[in-house]
């Protein structure tokens, strides 16, 4: 009976089973190669203990150093301590903010959500530079204001500290991404579940705590795990803010090991393998949660009516607006201010303001070249990601390809490896494989690297959208006589188009501001703006760095604004 059904399905329309298998196998092979091989190289090289130039020798020396050296352990401890501090503060706050935005009659919701969207796209290095001007212990504006107001010797704020790093993350990316992911999910919850609670006697806040949060628990956990995985990849902020106080985290420690002379790949890869093993179970949890059927359907015939906040309306608005401004306008404004300073951070010298930084950077041919490289790379990454991820997502969701959950699993892996190590793995991959070697040194390498590095989020977004579309739309097309290709072109693609554009935009921006993945891969001809900025910062020329940072920021926010104007929103649908 089943056999007959299968055959019929193949004949009447749609994607024939054999063709499914071919496409699926191809997708699996390519993705597995590009993702697993670098990771395998990383793990493999953690056992390589010979000095460079000597023939390869294997042993556990790298592991021994990684596990026993106090610097390493301190770095891992710092990583998790920072992560915990960040999540503990931002998570409850983000839930509260998302609830306010999604389910109450908070005024100005549209604008506020937009500002969180904007904050998500600001590059972290640019934002950090802006915050340095505010919170530097010596010249930071906040400290100067404090000293002026309260007459103390020193201001209390110090961005070069544990809590400074926490702040730099909170005040930029951490809260924004959670708010952006949670708000649509909250919005989609059946309002009558809350209303039933209110009618049964629970107050507004009681309903929030007893009904909304437990029901949303799967979504919350997914977002938390995403946040943890992202947090482990944090690199640029710690590099800049941690250097003066020698606070190392996992990713900067790896960076330092690789920058030893000779580079210590052994302990670096051992360290990353350890963390990879820690993250492994998180992937399984994620997949399990997202795969479960979500039982909070959108029900009811009416629009979910917002909960009235009554006299708390304007105070709540003030709070959210304050946070929104703090994470967008403040760092952007200060960063731009910094570009006009002749000495970064010195407000009290004779001629503190100048245009010479801008002139110098613009006249530098390397800058224009980097700009061009960045645009090409980001556009290439955006386009390639749309094609690749939609194909992978399609195979996972819509075909009966036998290995599709393996494909899905593999697509999660790159998010668990920090950018630097992915970069190294890819470097080795490209040098080792003969048919990829011609790409070495070109911008294609960078495009491929950023696309591979960001496969997880993009695939998940397209997947969830495909799942929502359901089978009937396709089936209606097939029974009306359209072939698979026509169905795909005329039904699926137009319906998917907003999502595809969103993924393209996300990847464009991600590629434009990526630093850790491309730091080791970029050759002289393929340097990007973000790397140029890092170069400037590392060699201490913050004035030029600020100019480049502003350019990157303008690029990414410009694209984000354009996307928003076309009505794109980010959402995590379970």
């Amino acid at each position, binding site marked *: 009976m089943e056999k007959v059904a299968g055959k019929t399905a193949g004949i009447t329309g749609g994607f024939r089973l054999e063709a499914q298998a071919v496409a699926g196998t191809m997708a699996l092979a390519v993705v597995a190669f590009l993702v697993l091989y670098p990771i395998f190289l990383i793990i493999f090289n953690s056992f390589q203990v010979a000095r460079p130039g000597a023939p390869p020798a294997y042993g556990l020396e790298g592991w021994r150093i990684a596990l026993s050296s106090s610097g390493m352990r301190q770095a891992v401890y710092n990583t998790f301590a920072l992560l915990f501090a960040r999540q503990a503060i931002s998570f409850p706050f983000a839930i509260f903010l998302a609830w306010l935005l999604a389910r109450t009659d908070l005024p100005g919701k549209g604008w506020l959500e937009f500002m969180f969207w904007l904050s998500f796209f600001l590059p972290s290095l640019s934002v950090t530079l802006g915050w340095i001007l505010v919170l530097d212990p010596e010249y930071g504006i906040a400290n100067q204001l404090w000293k002026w107001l309260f007459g103390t010797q020193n201001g209390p704020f110090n961005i070069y500290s544990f809590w400074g790093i926490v702040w730099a993350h909170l005040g930029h990316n951490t809260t924004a991404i959670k708010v952006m992911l949670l708000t649509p999910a909250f919005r989609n919850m*059946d309002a*009558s*579940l809350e*209303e*039933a*609670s*209110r*009618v*049964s*006697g*629970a*107050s507004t806040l*009681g309903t929030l705590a*007893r*009904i909304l949060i*437990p*029901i949303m*628990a799967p979504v919350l956990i997914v977002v938390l795990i995403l946040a943890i995985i992202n947090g482990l990849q944090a690199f640029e902020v710690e590099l800049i803010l941690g250097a003066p106080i020698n606070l190392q985290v996992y990713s900067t420690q790896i960076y330092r090991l690789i920058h030893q002379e000779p580079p210590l790949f052994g302990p670096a890869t051992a360290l990353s393998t350890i963390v990879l093993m820690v993250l492994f179970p998180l992937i399984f949890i994620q997949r399990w949660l997202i795969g479960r059927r979500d*039982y*909070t359907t959108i*029900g*009811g*015939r*009416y629009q979910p*009516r917002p909960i*009235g906040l*009554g006299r708390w309306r304007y105070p709540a608005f003030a709070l959210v607006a304050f946070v929104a401004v703090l994470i967008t306008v403040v760092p952007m404004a200060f960063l731009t201010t910094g570009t006009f300073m002749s000495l970064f951070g010195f407000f009290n010298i004779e001629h503190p303001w100048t245009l010479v930084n801008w002139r110098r950077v613009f006249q530098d041919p390397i800058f224009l070249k980097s700009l061009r490289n960045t645009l090409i790379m980001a556009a290439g990454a955006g386009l390639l990601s749309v094609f690749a991820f939609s194909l992978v997502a399609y195979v996972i969701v819509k075909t009966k390809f036998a290995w599709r959950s393996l494909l899905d699993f593999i697509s999660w892996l790159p998010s668990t490896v920090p950018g630097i190590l992915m970069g190294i793995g890819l470097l080795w991959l490209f040098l080792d494989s003969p048919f990829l070697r011609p790409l070495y040194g070109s911008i294609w390498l960078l495009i491929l690297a950023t696309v591979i590095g960001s496969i997880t989020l993009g695939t998940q977004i397209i997947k969830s959208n495909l799942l929502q579309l359901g089978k009937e739309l396709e089936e209606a097309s097939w029974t009306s006589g359209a072939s698979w290709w026509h169905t795909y072109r005329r039904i699926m693609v137009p319906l998917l188009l907003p999502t595809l554009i969103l993924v393209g935009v996300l990847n464009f921006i991600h590629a434009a501001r990526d630093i850790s993945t491309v730091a080791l891969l970029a050759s002289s001809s393929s340097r990007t703006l973000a790397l140029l900025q890092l170069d400037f910062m590392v060699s201490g020329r913050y004035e030029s760095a600020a100019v480049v940072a502003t350019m990157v920021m303008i690029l990414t926010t410009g694209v984000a604004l354009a996307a928003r104007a076309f009505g794109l929103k980010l959402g995590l649908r379970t």
Partner: protein
Amino acid sequence: MEHRRGLFWGRVRLRSAAVFFKMLKVAGLKKSYATDRGAVEAVREVSFEVAKGEVFTLLGPSGCGKSTTLRCIAGLETPDAGEIELADCVVYSSHTGVSVPTHERGVGMVFQSYAIWPHMTVYENVVFPLRFGPRRVPKRELPERVRRALRLVQMEGMADRPAPLLSGGQQQRVALARALVYEPAVLLLDEPLSNLDAKLRLEMRSELQALIRELQVTALYVTHDQEEALALSDRIAVMQDGVVQQEGTPQEIYLSPANAYVAGFVGRMNFFEGKIEDGARNGTLRVSLSFGKVAVASPVAAEAFQLGRAVVVAIRPEDVVLRAEPYSQENNAFPATVSRLLFVGNRIQCELQVGSCRCEVEAEGRMGLRLQSAVQVEFPPERLSLFPI
């Protein structure tokens, strides 16, 4: 808006000793929404009263304002104007500025989607109002109260079952149990049966009716299904466009509709347009229709219909007398041909062509009718209703 403490069951009990005590009073309710196309008046001017133990139904199509009215009573919406009293306690008044928040009103509500919390078991769902509502109950009494409520809806053995494992019908029962567990002053039901399949719906309808009668609970029911309304209610208010078109018992609504809208909405109705030909003469009006003249016996407000007035004559399909062969020459009898036939088992639903008009008729199943047969229809004068156009 001033917030006051909610109701107390004890107080309600004392006050509601009188049989005709009005448990729910709604006066002058108004509510409009701002949409992209400007303000939409969902409820324009609604007033009614529900006596204790009565089942009162708001009946109407979607968009007529019935759900909005219900939600205003529950406190989920804030009206623009009007007054709402629950068991003699003002819970909303636009004059005095009172607005009691939802969780203090002490009503019980069954939602259209049941709104059973998926992360809890049946027991936890039902016990919730007793734990957090305005009428808290000491802990040791909780299991017994829940058991009682579940027994009412025949879900007694399911207390520990997790909510997601319940079928649609079971969810509905749990929703009902939850709404009733703290013996609310008023039970609000928002189209509770519309998500069930047809057979289950009929079953649940009679169970619901039996339960409400047994408990003698005051209920406000909202539905668009007129059959349901007629079966369940003590009194019905037919709503359209934000106002009540007619309020009355099911018999009044069905047999004496106040206007063409109510007539057409409740039950099926044939409408024929025509003109008044003859003035009122011993209680009978003559109307000329396109296929002939009919006599309408004692229409309501006969004086309002002057000569020449354009009117609509209405008659229920089951009131039309159908004869297989034309043999009578009585008044209100006309020849017709069968244009459509639908055999539904116990009856035949026919569509006849009378002149240029169509007429729906219900005939006995055993009547031998065929398409294009010539028949005779008779419209008994006392069964005809007359409405101005």
